[in-house]
């Protein structure tokens, strides 16, 4: 079942990594546990729908459902059945590192998708090619994926607030030095998370956003 989108289409995409010390993850987990406990008491027929509706606001934000609109409010069910609306920003203390996302052009998004989906090794393996050729192809795949992640971040990161190593204003060109700085802080995991967030932020319209002519259960075309 579709539910109305809670985000604004023109809200800036702002990504916060789940390891950020300013994120009150303990509060998120506590509230999510209350909701999970309540779900065990509802009829099984409505449980899946309600689990989707009352998924914790931080998890909904982090999944990219709201295109990383930090201020999109989602319902939260507290103890005693009280329902309030909270946004992801409500779980951040001052000083959180905010990665501002930029929407990718379609052609860039498609090109990065090709790099990330590189599967030459799998093809070579299925064709029964010699082992050393498969290994060589696997190396190429890995390089392509890393290249895709770096390219996504170079094109789609538009400044960072509260960056530990000084100002990183909007419009700053993300060059190799900046990528290395990100790598130094969070390693490949941070680069991958940023790249996937940028791609999600740049997704075509989804069904709940009015994607025309989509059949129920189908994914938007990429």
């Amino acid at each position: 079942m579709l539910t109305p989108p809670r985000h604004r289409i023109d809200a800036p995409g702002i990504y916060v990594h789940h390891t950020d010390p300013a994120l009150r993850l303990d509060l998120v987990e506590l509230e999510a546990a209350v909701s999970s406990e309540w779900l065990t008491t509802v009829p099984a027929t409505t449980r899946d729908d309600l689990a989707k509706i009352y998924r914790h606001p931080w998890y909904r934000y982090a999944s990219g459902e709201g295109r990383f609109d930090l201020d999109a409010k989602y319902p939260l069910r507290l103890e005693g059945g009280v329902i309030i609306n909270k946004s992801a920003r409500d779980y951040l203390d001052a000083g959180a590192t905010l990665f501002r996302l930029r929407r990718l052009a379609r052609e860039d998004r498609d090109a990065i998708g090709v790099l990330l989906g590189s599967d030459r090794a799998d093809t070579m393996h299925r064709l029964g090619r010699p082992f050393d050729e498969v290994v060589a192809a696997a190396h190429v795949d890995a390089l392509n994926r890393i290249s895709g992640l770096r390219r996504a971040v170079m094109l789609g990161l538009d400044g960072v607030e509260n960056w530990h190593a000084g100002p990183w204003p909007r419009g700053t060109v993300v060059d190799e030095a900046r990528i290395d700085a990100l790598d130094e802080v969070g390693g490949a995991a941070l680069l991958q998370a940023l790249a996937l967030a940028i791609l999600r932020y740049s997704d075509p319209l989804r069904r709940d956003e009015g994607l025309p002519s989509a059949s129920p259960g189908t994914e938007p075309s990429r």
Partner: protein
Amino acid sequence: MRRTGKDGRAVVRLELVVDCRRCELDGATAEERQRRADQVYRPGLCCTLPHFDASRWTGDLVTDYHAAPLWDDDDPIARISESGCAGGWITSPFVASLAHYRPVVRSGGMAPARLPTADPVILDALAVLDDAAAATSMAFTEATLT
């Protein structure tokens, strides 16, 4: 503000659906309508939630959604029983945020949109909205003039 369409069914203008305090779909009391309005205008959107009893609507009253981007199917009545009140969708922050990017209708013609954009996702959403608006306006005109 009910009218009868060419097929004999009542036509409810979207304005009645958008303003939950005036919703006449199921003969709810004023208190119930106010409660729903509170839920919709705050982001609770109770009438679009799965646990809302959709059988309480007489969905066959709603044949015109006028600019509702999600109700351009051939059978909007089926959709409302599945996905909830059109008003809940139309008053969503997502649709409201598109308003800045649409031309404004003024006496004497159309004024340009307040905000220009080259964002591909916003442009796609505007195209969907405009297509749905054109289709539903046409349907409403046909229903009321014939």
